[in-house]
């Protein structure tokens, strides 16, 4: 049996989570303070996933760029590919928080959404 110590990245509490494994099978997850910690630890041992946050170009807004976030975690190993998709996009103001900017990013099932509202510039 192998034991792995992970730091949960879901929130700034950063729980130290211990995962016991038998080969590829997870036997137990301990040390997490919420269910998200267990889900994180299970994925982390198979294919790590992360939320991606970035910005996209925006035309006619109060700023030059609009912050965006994935609606759920995407595999860590597609981050750079995902960034290429994000870089291609340009949106027009106004935008509301939660507006879908890219749907089903790289077939991951996650959308890229606006993480703030931005009015059109006067």
């Amino acid at each position, binding site marked *: 049996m192998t034991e792995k110590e*992970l730091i949960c990245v879901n*929130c700034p509490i950063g729980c130290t989570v211990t995962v016991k494994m038998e080969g590829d099978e997870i036997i137990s997850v301990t040390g997490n303070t919420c269910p998200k910690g267990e889900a994180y630890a299970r994925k982390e041992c198979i294919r790590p996933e992360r*939320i991606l946050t*970035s910005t996209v170009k925006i035309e006619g807004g109060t*700023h030059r*760029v609009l912050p965006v976030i994935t609606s759920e975690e995407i595999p860590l190993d597609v981050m750079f590919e995902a*960034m290429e998709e994000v870089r291609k996009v340009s949106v027009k103001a106004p935008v509301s*928080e939660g507006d879908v900017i890219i749907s089903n990013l790289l077939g991951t099932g996650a959308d890229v959404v606006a*993480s703030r509202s931005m009015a059109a510039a006067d």
Partner: protein
Amino acid sequence: MRHYESVIIGGGSAGLAAAVALKKQGIGDIVILEKDGEPGGILEQCIHNGFGLQTFKEQLSGPAYAERFIRMAEELGVEIKLNTMAVGLTRGREVEYVNPEEGDVTVSADTVILAVGCYERPRGAIGIHGPRCAGVYTAGQAQKYLNIDGYMVGKRVFILGSGDIGLIMARRMTLEGAKVLGVAELMPYSSGLPRNMKQCLEDFGIPLYLSHTVTKTFGKSRLEKIELMEVDDNRQPVPGSEMYFDCDTLLLSVGLIPENHLADDAGIEMDPSTKGPVVDDSYMTSAEGIFACGNGLHVHDLVDFVSLQAERAGEGAARYIRAKREGTEAGERRVSVRPGENVSYTVPALVHPDSAWGNVEFFFRVKAPLDTVSVVIRGGGRVIRTIKKRKMIPSEMERVVLTKDVIAGLSGDVVISVEPQA
């Protein structure tokens, strides 16, 4: 002179939460003075996720977290003056501000809430030898350029200091196509949160050099190279340990300092450890009717705690206004709350046992990483509470709660210490 029930200086996470709390307490005649063109403060450039898990039970980006509070403030009809810089504050609660519409204006208030935030320690504060060429930025400055203005500050980057903003910028710039060569930390442990070590450095294979510092910069008009050296136990460079990195950008993530020139103007007592004002359990400073919260009080790692403390400050200001109106005096007796062994500071630093109005949360940090310890709270020399902890680190703010009854029964000073488990 225009008079307000409360003038809140700063429209970031602390100022917004304090304003919302005041309105909910029925204090209506209030105004927020915000120097930027929009409310939200530093959260607007913190586009990464991880905000709000405690406040909203959701993982939000910084701008999304701010937007929730901006909406609450709007719905409650909070007046926010944008592009407005507070430039003066007196002990008698007169606030001078400037903005392009009104010019230079002085207003008076029953209460003032300082929610002024903090600033980054600049290059000059750490004395790196070398020419003043372009390419050296504080991490937060680079973050603003990238996330708000859409400019990348460089392509080959080295980061000094393992503070959270530096770690987050290491990941952000890597994703944007820059090569981040490494992060150096003077101390033998990281000053950032463990989750950021994991997801910002380890995920991208960015090396962390503990007990190292940048000793020299080289370049003519733009940075070309830095010198990195190992440091000994006294944080002095070890001769012969020089390493060189070719880079066009050096980001500094070497600490945050509460912005307190207004508090100094008003002659408010400061805590040398937090570098912010000394406050009581209502978040009132040594100047009557002037309150403080947020990063201008002490530097936080969780915005959720900022909102919580700012809400207490808003409630404290509301109680103060009501007590004035009704002519009821706050309890005179005060006991101080002091850091003991292994603790660098406590906030609040004063409580009023005779007018205890509810449970009080105390926030503190340990001085160095510790394993298998107990947080011991003593009041008048007697142990009130002991809490066992497996691990404590300076980068994580700790919180302990004392109930209203315990506060009311306090007979002497409270000391919070962290000790080996008995």
